[in-house]
């Protein structure tokens, strides 16, 4: 009580923030119980009938849901295989650049796309990939190939989604690895040089081990967002022609939930997504702790 009186200013100024988290984070979390109901807007939470796990059962019997779940998993997997390692490789290469001015210019340039919105990136890509005016098709054309309608065919959408993500964020992703690289003790390199190790060997035996903890942590964070590919990104690129391969859980939840007002069903999907994310983080964390002693918690 004494503490409360003495530091009342601290408690007082923290109040708006605490209220924010209660209202906009915990209230919706509590509202997620509608996943176990057959929610009716007119009856509200208390009047709507409880249906147990029916909504979840419904999920797994819908072929449409299964197709979208497959899309989400595949796109997440491609993103992990292709997009995750690129910032690490970039950072290692950038780290080898000795000319400070050149390095700074390069960093400024590769960070820039991170600050563009998905709508803008969508617009840029549509401009580049357009079958009539896009530069890629003009190049194809000059070599005598037929134009390809990249955004109108389902076979390209996943590559486009993963590729634009690489363009937007891989430069930005290097920041954290460059910070880790900056903490390497230069004496280690000196010692390695004396032992006759070349740069490749130094990288393998000094640089990579030092940034491994950072890589592990970034990987764990990435795993937690495995099913969370990002609504804004996908919604820009999908259309009726490519949606069979591009639609993910988030866009499905928006369409079926908010537009078609299937509230309980899509809340169940959303909860399922969050639970899977949590489980993946927990499994990943346990495994990495066993393997290397590194973990998020």
């Amino acid at each position, binding site marked *: 009580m004494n503490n409360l009186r003495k530091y009342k200013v601290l408690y007082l*100024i923290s109040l*708006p*923030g605490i209220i924010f988290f209660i209202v906009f984070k915990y209230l919706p979390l509590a509202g997620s119980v509608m996943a176990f109901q057959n929610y009716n807007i007119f009856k509200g939470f208390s009047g709507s009938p409880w249906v147990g796990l029916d909504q979840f059962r419904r999920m797994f019997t819908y072929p449409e849901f299964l197709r979208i779940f497959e899309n989400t998993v595949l796109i997440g997997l491609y993103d992990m295989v292709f997009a995750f390692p690129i910032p690490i490789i970039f950072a290692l*290469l950038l780290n080898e650049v000795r000319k400070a001015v050149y390095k700074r210019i390069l960093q400024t340039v590769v960070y820039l796309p991170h600050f563009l919105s998905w*709508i803008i990136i*969508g617009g840029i890509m549509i401009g580049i990939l357009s079958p009539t*005016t896009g530069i890629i098709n003009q190049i194809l054309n000059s070599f005598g190939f037929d134009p390809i309608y990249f955004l109108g065919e389902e076979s390209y959408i996943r590559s486009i989604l993963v590729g634009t993500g690489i363009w937007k964020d891989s430069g930005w992703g290097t920041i954290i690895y460059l910070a880790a690289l900056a903490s390497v003790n230069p004496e280690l390199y000196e010692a390695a040089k004396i032992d006759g190790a070349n740069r490749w060997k130094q990288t393998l035996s000094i640089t990579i081990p030092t940034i491994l903890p950072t890589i592990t942590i970034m990987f764990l964070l990435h795993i937690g967002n495995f099913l969370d590919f990002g609504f804004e990104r996908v919604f820009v690129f999908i*259309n009726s022609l490519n949606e069979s391969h591009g639609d993910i859980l988030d866009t499905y939840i928006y369409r079926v939930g908010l537009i078609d007002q299937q509230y309980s069903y899509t809340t169940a*999907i959303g909860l399922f*997504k969050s639970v899977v994310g949590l489980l993946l983080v927990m499994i990943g964390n346990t495994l990495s702790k066993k393997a290397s002693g590194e973990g998020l918690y």
Partner: protein
Amino acid sequence: MKNKGRIFDVINYIFLTLVGCMMVFPILHVLAKSFSSTQAINAGKVTLFPIDWTVMNYQVILGDGSIWRAFMVSILITVVGTLINLIFTASLAYPLSRQEYSIRKVILILILVTMIFQAPLIPNYMVIKNLQLIDSLWVLIIPSAISAYNLFIMRSFFTALPSELIDSASIDGAGELRTIWSIILPLSKPVMATMGLFYAVSHWNSYSSALYYINDRALYPLQLRLREIVLSNDLGQAGSLLENVNEVSPAGVQMAVIIVSVIPIIIVYPFLQKYFIKGMLIGSIKS
């Protein structure tokens, strides 16, 4: 062996330069198209430099009232929203950095939980609907007042400030508020600038919350209006803009409107770059 290293360096420089070009090339391509004539664009002549220089595309945009209005909405949201972001985030981050704040641990865990486990879209929608925020510009400001990630970065910055500063201020008889105002805040400029930039960019770029919660077209922020214009080709939602003008190509106008909406970011980017790298480092080392 020395030779080998030299070869690697050359290849590395060439490779990284190519990567750098890949990052700017699409933006330059868009810029070039936005200043080119319809015929040149349609004939596929435009690559990195404008062909048949024209400002017609920009005239179309500037003549469209709905784009102006959307631009103003976005500026308003970004300025007011960022201010509220900084006030809300700092006023919670600072107490969380102080040992004397006894409920520190509980609050930190509760916030961490919201980062790992997020409520689905519909329950969020219900809360916002019950608060009667639908079709109000506040919906783009209040529900995103604090980002947990930014909060942690700010907290670790405050934690790193030497506690002697606060002690000596209290010995000199300064109250908490006075300490915050005249000691903590002036020292926090770098972290405030970084967080301000992050928040401002996310306000400027976000469109999903407007898509979910705003139906009134008069309140559309720029990104949502942009979406109609840019994606009109593919989704068949031709904006009112393009129907009236026959002699201008949709592609040129689309590219021009992209450039217009990127300008604010290009303007603030160089000024704040030195700050955000510092800020990212604070965040990465501590959390």
